[in-house]
C-alpha cells in the first residue's frame, strides 16, 4: 500500500464503489441492527469520535514516521472551543467547528515550525512539552473553564437554511459522528493518493531521492503536521457535545494512550487501522473490563507484545498469513 496506486480496471472499480456504498449503509443502520438502545448508540458514537481523534496521529505517524505526543492539545482545542463558544456566546455547531479548524491550523503551524528540525524522540518530547504547557494553561485559566471545566454544554445545533439539525441525544449525535468518520476516511483515502501524501512518503522513505527531485522536506513536514491537527480537533469538537462537559481531563494520558495504541496496533497506512484499533480498545473497556489494575496489565501487555513480535502492527501477521495461503 505504499506504492502509488495505478488506475484499476472498470468492473473492479464499480465493485469497489458498490462495496463502499453497502458498508456506509450498514454503518448508518448499525445501531439499529444491534438493538438500538441508547448505550449502543453512545458506544458507537464514542468509537467514531475516538477513531477520528486517532486519525490525526495516524497521519503524522504514517506519513512523517514520527510519534506526536501533542495531539491531545488539538483534541482539547476542539473541545474547549465548542464548549466556550456555545455556552458563552451561543454559537451554532458550524461556527464552533470552523473556529476549531482555524485554531488547530494556527496551533499546528506554530508547533510544526518549532519542531521542523527535530526528529524522532526529540520531536516526540517537544510535542509532549507543548501538551503539558497547554494543560497547565487550561487548568489555571478560569475564564476558559479552570480546573473543573465547563458544564452544561447544550445540544449541537447545525442549521441548514430554515431548519436545523439538533444533536442532543446519543441517537441524534450518531449520524453526525458517522458522517465525521466517513469524511475523515474519505479525506485520508484522498490524501494517500494526493501529491502531498505521496511526496511525504517519499521524503520518509528516501530523503535523498526527494531532495534530488527538488522537494523541500520542511515544507512537507509542516504541511502534513498542519493537516493532521484539525482532524483530531474536530473529534474533540464533537466530543464536547456528546459528553456535555469539557475539562482539563481532555489532556489526560487516557486519550494519548488510546491514540497511540489504536494507531500502532493494527499497522501504518492501513485505512481502517485506527478505526479497528479504537473499536477493539473501547470494546475491551466496556465489555471485558476486569478492573483498573488488570485492564492496565492487559492493555500494556497487548501493546508491548504486538509491537515486539510484529513491529509493523497486526497487519503484518495478517499479511504473512495471507501470503502463506497463496
Amino acid at each position, binding site marked *: 500500500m505504499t506504492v502509488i496506486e495505478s488506475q484499476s480496471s472498470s468492473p473492479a472499480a464499480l465493485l469497489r464503489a458498490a462495496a463502499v456504498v453497502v458498508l456506509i449503509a450498514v454503518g448508518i443502520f448499525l445501531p439499529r441492527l444491534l438493538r438500538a438502545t441508547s448505550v449502543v448508540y453512545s458506544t458507537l458514537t464514542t468509537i467514531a469520535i475516538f477513531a477520528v481523534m486517532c486519525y490525526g496521529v495516524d497521519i503524522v505517524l504514517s506519513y512523517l514516521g514520527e510519534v506526536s505526543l501533542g495531539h491531545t492539545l488539538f483534541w482539547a482545542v476542539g473541545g474547549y472551543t465548542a464548549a466556550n463558544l456555545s455556552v458563552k456566546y451561543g454559537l451554532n455547531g458550524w461556527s464552533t467547528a470552523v473556529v476549531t479548524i482555524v485554531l488547530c491550523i494556527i496551533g499546528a503551524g506554530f508547533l510544526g515550525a518549532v519542531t521542523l528540525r527535530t526528529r524522532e524522540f526529540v520531536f516526540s518530547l517537544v510535542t509532549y512539552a507543548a501538551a503539558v504547557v497547554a494543560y497547565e494553561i487550561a487548568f489555571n485559566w478560569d475564564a476558559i473553564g479552570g480546573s*473543573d471545566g465547563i*458544564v*452544561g454544554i447544550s445540544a449541537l445545533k447545525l442549521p441548514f437554511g430554515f431548519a436545523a439539525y439538533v444533536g442532543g441525544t446519543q441517537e441524534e449525535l450518531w449520524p453526525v459522528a458517522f458522517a465525521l468518520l466517513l469524511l475523515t476516511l474519505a479525506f485520508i483515502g484522498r490524501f494517500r493518493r494526493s501529491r502531498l501524501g505521496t511526496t511525504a512518503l517519499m521524503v520518509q522513505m528516501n530523503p535523498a531521492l526527494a531532495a534530488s527531485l527538488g522537494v523541500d522536506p520542511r515544507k512537507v513536514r509542516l504541511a502534513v503536521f498542519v493537516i493532521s491537527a484539525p482532524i483530531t480537533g474536530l473529534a474533540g469538537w464533537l466530543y464536547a457535545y456528546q459528553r*456535555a*462537559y469539557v475539562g482539563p*481531563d481532555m489532556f489526560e494520558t*487516557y*486519550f494519548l494512550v488510546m491514540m497511540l495504541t489504536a494507531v500502532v496496533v493494527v499497522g501504518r497506512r492501513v485505512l481502517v487501522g485506527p478505526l479497528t484499533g479504537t473499536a477493539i480498545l473501547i470494546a475491551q473497556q466496556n465489555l471485558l*473490563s476486569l478492573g*483498573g489494575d488488570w485492564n492496565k496489565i492487559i492493555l500494556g501487555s497487548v501493546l508491548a507484545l504486538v509491537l515486539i513480535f510484529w513491529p509493523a502492527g497486526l497487519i503484518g501477521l495478517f499479511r504473512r498469513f495471507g501470503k502463506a495461503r497463496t
Partner: protein
Amino acid sequence: MKKSIKLAVALLLGVSGPAMAQDIKVGTIFPLSGGAGPDGQSVTNAVKLAIEQINEKGGLLGRKIALVSKDDESTPAVGVSRANEMIAEKVDLVIEGWNSPVTLAMQPILARAGILDITAVSKSDLILSGETNPLAIRINSSNGFDAGIIAKYVVETLKAKKVAFLTQNDVYGNGFQTAVEAEFKKLNFTGEVMMTEKFAFKDTDFRVQLTNLKSANPDAVIVTNSSNSSGLPAMVEQYRQADLKSAFVGAVGIMLPTVFKVAGDANNGIVSADIYFWNLPPFDGIPESQSFVAAFKKAYGVEPDKSAALGAAALQVWARAVEATKSLDRKTVAEAIRGKTIKGTVFGDAQFLPNGQLQPRYVIFKVVDGKTAKLEALP
C-alpha cells in the same frame, strides 16, 4: 456465552451475587484503583454494608437490593463508560463521585437516562448548579458552608491577627479560600491576610512555600490540601520539620485516616473540622450511627471514617425516601429528598436544602495524639 462473561466480570468486581429479576439494583461508581482506590473502596464497602443492613430487615418495598459496583479509575472518560454500563444494567440509583471532574462528566449522562444520581463525596459547586443535573443530590458538604466554621474558629476562637493561606491550586482549593475570605468580611475580621502560598494537587515537596510562610510568621496558616494519600501527610511532616510556629488550621474534611496513619505524631496540634466522627458527639449518640459503626467494624475490622459515612448516608437517604413515597421513580424520589428532612441515617436527621445539598453538622477538633488519631472536640 456473553452472560457467563458478564457473570464472571460481576463476580470479579465484587457484586454481591447474581441479581434476581425482582431485585432493586443500586450502582456505585467510585475509583477502585489508582491513587484514590483505597478511598473509593471504603465508600463502596460502606454502601454495601448499608444495603446488607436493609436486606437483613426485609429489603426495600419487599424486594432485596443488589449492588453493582464499578471503577471509574478517577478518569472522566472511564466514568462516562461506567455510567453507560449502569444504564445498560437498568439500575434504579447510582451513588457516585470521589473526583469532581468525573462526577461532572457522569451527571448529564445519568440525568438524560432518567437514573437517580446521588453524589457522595465530590465537592464542586457545579454539581448542584443544575446545569448537569436538575435533580442533583449531594451528601458531602460544600465549600461555602465549610468556610463558615473555619473562619469563625480563626477569627473568634484563635483570635488570629495575621493569617496566611496554603492553598491547593484548583477550583476546590481556590474556592475554599475565597469563601473563607468572604466569611472574614462578614465577621468583621480586623486582622490581615499576609500571604497566599499555592501548590499543585500532586506536589509532595513544600519546602519552598513553607520557607516563605516561616519568614512571614503568621498566627495561623489555613491549609487546604485534599491529597490525603501523599501530599497532605508529607506537608504535615515538612511543616513540623520546618519548625513553623504558626497554628496549622486544616480545611474541613482533609484530615482523613490515611493522613493520621502516615504522618502520625506530626499531626499533633492540628485543628480542623469534619462532618462525621464515629466516636465524637453528636454522632456517638445516634442509634443508626452506632449500629452502622458496629457492623462496619465487624465486617471490615476498622471503624468507618467520614467517607464511609457519606456512602452509607447516600444509600440510607435514598432508601428512606423510596419507602416514604413507595416509588422508584427518579423525580418522585428526588423531590422527596431535596428540600426535605430524612430521618434515620448515620447523620441522624438529614436535612437537605432545595438544591440537593445535605446540611452538615460540624465538629471542630484538635489533634491530641496523631498516632492513634485521638481527637479532642472543641466547642
